């Protein structure tokens, strides 16, 4: 007999009864997964990054399967913030799901505009700021790869959104010094970090002999990137042990989720694994509970960063 494990977690001042979350862009706005499990049984639904205006995204083909992974190039297709707040958020709250809204912009100003719209919305648990987007004001350089632009985005969001709502800055692993970018956004007002976004990649079609994806490059996700995620979380947790991390990248089982938690994640988002198995999140959550119990953890939170403990 093992005792039940307390699975609750916190990200900034937001409390969640369970540590598993959807990953932004891998659960749309939640409705589609409701057929497979009750959305209120997981930590929260992290919604697809939304921008200020409706967007078509990139041309097809938008995906290519790769060994133990996939490349995607969706280009942030979405309904725009107004429609999203009018339709999708109320539906999620009706299901008693907790909601983390992910926002994305093309300019520092756009992020602030989005934050202003979120300020008046009640019932959401946190905002995830996806800064892995091209900055149109700086030749399309991705915000998350530019320490100064990353800081300015988070600073703008913090100032407009005001006090309470936790801000989680989502970072890209495609940088040389991840801990310094992390420190920059935390100094600018982020309460937590989401690690990692997809890894930039490309597939060339050997029949057409051109890049396969309509957008040419794409983001690599799935089990192929899990070691990159573990490394990123470990490095950032070592540098900033007090800052909560929402970990993600290739998690497909309870063992994978535990690995990210031991590296320093306070919660784990499931992205690509839901494509192969729409009930993956629930299954992983149950596996994680058993693994924690088998290792003698009474609470999930005791396992956070446990891989960093001093040698006995």
């Amino acid at each position, binding site marked *: 007999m093992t005792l039940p494990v307390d699975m609750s977690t916190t990200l900034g001042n937001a409390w969640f009864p369970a540590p598993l979350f959807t990953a932004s*862009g*891998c*659960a*749309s706005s939640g*409705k*589609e*997964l*409701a*057929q*497979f499990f009750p959305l209120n049984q997981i930590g929260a639904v992290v919604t*697809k990054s939304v921008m200020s*205006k*409706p*967007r*078509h*995204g*990139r*041309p*097809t*083909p*938008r*995906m290519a*399967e790769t*060994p*133990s*992974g*996939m490349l*995607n190039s*969706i280009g942030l*297709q979405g309904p*725009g913030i107004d429609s999203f707040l009018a339709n999708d958020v109320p539906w999620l709250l009706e*299901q008693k799901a907790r909601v983390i809204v992910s926002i994305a912009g093309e300019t520092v100003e756009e992020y602030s505009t989005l934050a202003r719209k979120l300020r008046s919305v009640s019932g959401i648990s946190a905002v995830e700021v996806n800064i892995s987007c091209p900055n149109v004001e700086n030749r399309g350089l991705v915000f998350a790869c530019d320490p100064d632009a990353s800081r300015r985005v988070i600073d703008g969001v913090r100032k407009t959104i005001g006090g309470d709502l936790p801000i989680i800055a989502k970072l890209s692993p495609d940088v040389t010094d991840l801990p310094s970018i992390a420190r920059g956004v935390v100094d600018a007002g982020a309460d937590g970090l989401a690690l990692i976004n997809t890894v930039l990649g490309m597939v060339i079609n050997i029949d057409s002999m051109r890049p396969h994806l*309509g957008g040419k490059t794409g983001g690599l996700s*799935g*089990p192929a990137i899990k070691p990159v995620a573990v490394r990123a979380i470990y490095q950032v947790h070592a540098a900033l042990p007090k800052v909560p991390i929402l970990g993600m990248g290739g998690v*497909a089982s309870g063992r994978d989720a535990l690995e990210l938690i031991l590296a320093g994640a306070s919660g784990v988002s499931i992205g*690509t*694994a*839901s*494509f*192969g*198995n*729409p*009930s993956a999140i629930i299954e992983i959550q149950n596996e994680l509970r058993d693994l924690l119990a088998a290792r003698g953890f009474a609470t999930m939170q005791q396992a956070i960063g446990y891989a960093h403990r001093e040698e006995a």
Partner: protein
Amino acid sequence: MATINKNAIQQVVTLVSNKRIGAYHQILLNVGDVVKSCRPGNFVAIRVGGDSSKMILRRAFAISRVADNSQYGGTMELIVAPHGSGSKWLCSQQEGAEIDIIAPLGTAFGIPTEPINALLIGGGYGSAPLFGLADVLKNRGCKVDMLLGASVGSKIYAPMEGKRSVNSLKIYTEDGSMGETGRVTENLLDIVRDRNVDVIYSCGPMAMLSAITALVAETEVIHQCAVEESMACGVGICMTCVLPVQNEDGTTLMLRSCIDGPVMDGSNVRWDLVGKVPEALA
């Protein structure tokens, strides 16, 4: 409460038989009661490669037919072309194999309430869902004519028992190895006129669906087509499978072919924009 794919369930089912038919494999799965909610046009998403596979995404296949069979209970038939590693894996599975499926997914062909004249057009394995559809239409008193086309005769799927549900069947191959030489679109407008066709139901390569749409654009014929876009999830959460579709108000939206399709109204699909991005949204 789910509002999308309300009847879909994920389950591990047993493969009952796997027979080669020309270039395809006819795969029969013992799926149980879920057959009751499968409609012609729906598809199934199948996990491939076994537990330790490096293939992480499901593969989509049209549900060819379902039956409530006394021997096996509910069975589902698929017609699978061995194409790449996932479909080849499925075609290599033997009787008794356990297969992880999610079904039924997506939209179905609209079934008329009146007895109409229907023309069913299939390209390659695209004929698979049309025989199940023909049964349903026939039971509604519709007149059902069918045109099938493929590059070569081995890629025509037309089972003997399926032919009973159609009033006529015409086959075209590009190399002339079966039926007439040419394509299904050859004399399409004449056929539509001579037989007073009210609705065309089609399934096959996108180029065929687009050509049919263009041919019937000036007629009164309704064209329901089952599209095939590459899908990562099949359940509406990834946005990879989108097609440009025109709204009533004239704007074009990128709709997910897995939940807003695979069956779509051909005249609404902006075939000219497939693989491109529509004009910016207001």
